């Protein structure tokens, strides 16, 4: 078999990427699998323990709570992102002047460091020092008598991390949906109007079906990122109060770097691998088809 004439050049061009991928992604990943099968404690040599880490976690109450928290966090912020993203796209679609300016402005949260976002929202929700933003507004509006420590209750802390995660990512959804809406042919709307469709029916039967593709891509991409989120939860709550906002990535960090149990810490993140494989396969199919 004769190889195509570019094969030599391709090897040269792709070798830096390949070295990086093999050395710093594939090799660490195999190490992760191996570590999850050991009882590695920092400072001690690792011993092979088979699936004991997996069995331990399946039986661990904290881990059960972590799974539940991660699901609530991911589902809650995804629902908010999709709804506000759609609203933002509809609003921008109706703007008749300066649309690019507003679109750029609304994207600002998305380029800001998540650590800064988390610190800022933590303070906005806080009761002290000097009352956070929400307490200040509610007190000044006469709706509260005393400041509420939102972040001190499990439900309040969960709501706060969801809001911060939502705020960072919803502009991405809005901009994607706006582009999707602008790609829907005008004639479809005209035809629907001729058939007597009202505003809601045009949205329901023309806009939403036209956005199906971009809806799936944004939801799956954001699902992958949110279910693995570390920064927002770590900076805002450290997983607390108690374990009320502990999610996969923060719990894995806690077990590996505070309890120094590396084997078990790695195993926590490996539980997400099957979910990731399904999500990545799904979204790649859509994104690769787009490139054809």
């Amino acid at each position: 078999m004769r190889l195509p004439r570019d094969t030599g050049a391709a090897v040269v061009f792709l070798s830096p990427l390949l070295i990086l991928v093999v050395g710093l992604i594939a090799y660490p990943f195999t190490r992760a699998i191996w570590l999850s099968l050991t009882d590695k404690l920092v400072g001690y040599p690792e011993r092979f323990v088979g699936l004991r880490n997996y069995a331990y976690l399946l039986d661990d109450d904290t881990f059960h709570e972590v799974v539940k928290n991660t699901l609530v966090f991911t589902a809650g912020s995804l629902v908010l992102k999709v709804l506000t993203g759609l609203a933002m796209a509809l609003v921008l679609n109706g703007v008749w002047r300066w649309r690019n300016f507003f679109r750029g402005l609304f994207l600002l949260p998305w380029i800001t460091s998540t650590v800064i976002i988390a610190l800022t929202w933590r303070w906005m929700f806080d009761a002290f020092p000097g009352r956070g933003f929400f307490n200040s507004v509610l007190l000044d509006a006469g709706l509260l008598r005393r400041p509420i420590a939102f972040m001190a209750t499990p439900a309040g802390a969960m709501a706060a991390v969801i809001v911060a995660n939502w705020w960072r990512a919803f502009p991405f959804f809005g901009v994607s949906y706006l582009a999707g809406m602008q790609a829907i042919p005008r004639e479809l709307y005209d035809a629907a109007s001729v058939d007597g469709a009202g505003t809601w029916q045009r949205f329901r039967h023309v806009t939403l079906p036209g956005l199906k593709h971009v809806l799936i891509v944004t939801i799956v991409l954001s699902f992958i990122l949110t279910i693995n989120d570390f920064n927002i939860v770590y900076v805002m709550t450290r997983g607390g109060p108690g374990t009320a906002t502990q999610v996969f990535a923060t719990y894995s960090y806690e077990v590996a770097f505070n309890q120094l149990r590396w084997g078990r810490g790695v195993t926590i993140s490996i539980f997400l691998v099957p979910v990731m494989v399904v999500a990545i396969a799904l979204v790649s199919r859509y994104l690769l088809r787009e490139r054809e």
Partner: protein
Amino acid sequence: MTVRAFTIIGLVAFLLIVLVPFWWIASMSFKTYEQVQFATSIYVPRPFTWENYTVLWSATRFPLWLRNSVVTAVLVTLITTVVASLAGYAVARLRFPGRELFASLILVLYLVPPALLFIPLYRVLAELGATNSLAALVLSYPTFTVPFCTWLLIGFFKALPRELEEAAFVDGATRAAALTRVLLPLAAPGIVASAIFAFTLSWNEFLYALVFIQDETALTVPVGLNLLIYGDVFSWGQLMAASVITTLPVVALYMFIHRWMVEGLAAGSVKG
């Protein structure tokens, strides 16, 4: 009429949602410690002070962290741009076995979450003797910037007209000459945009920097910020001043590529 009313109300609502947190950061950065602690002049700093900025600059390690962030981001951007441009070009243009597989592989790699790799990567870097220095970050950040930028650049190179390179080949140019003289100038906007993405991703990164570096003098800004919190005492004024200083360069860079970035986003090619 109702559509127009909806638009105006919606626009105001989204402006408030987006701008209130930024205004909170900026306004707090100009307040004294007492103004923050005792909740005086909550919404607008009165009196207005630069105290936090001067303290941050002269009495904390912030300038050092800023320097570390700049060094890391610049090196990561350089490495990423070279590796991703070569790979992006190869996948977009060259004919070789397994090309399609490569395109899929790069996409999959760009979706692999850092939360999965930080523990084993720490071990690998420790064995290389790279932990506790910026080398750890310069080595590990390309694991997410390179797949991401390669994916962007594949799309970008594919969109460039093939005829120009072919004309150069016909005129007897070598591949190297065709690449540097013909393709590179055309590809410059895409390469600059991908470099800005690499810079931003590196600038904002937190998890790897937190895990791989313990030495306070080798920290980057995102991790350093957490050291301005002493136990339960938050130096909020300084934190917010640091946030302003850290956010401005990214906003400035982003104004350059906003239009291009929106198109990239629209193609679903950007993480969110």
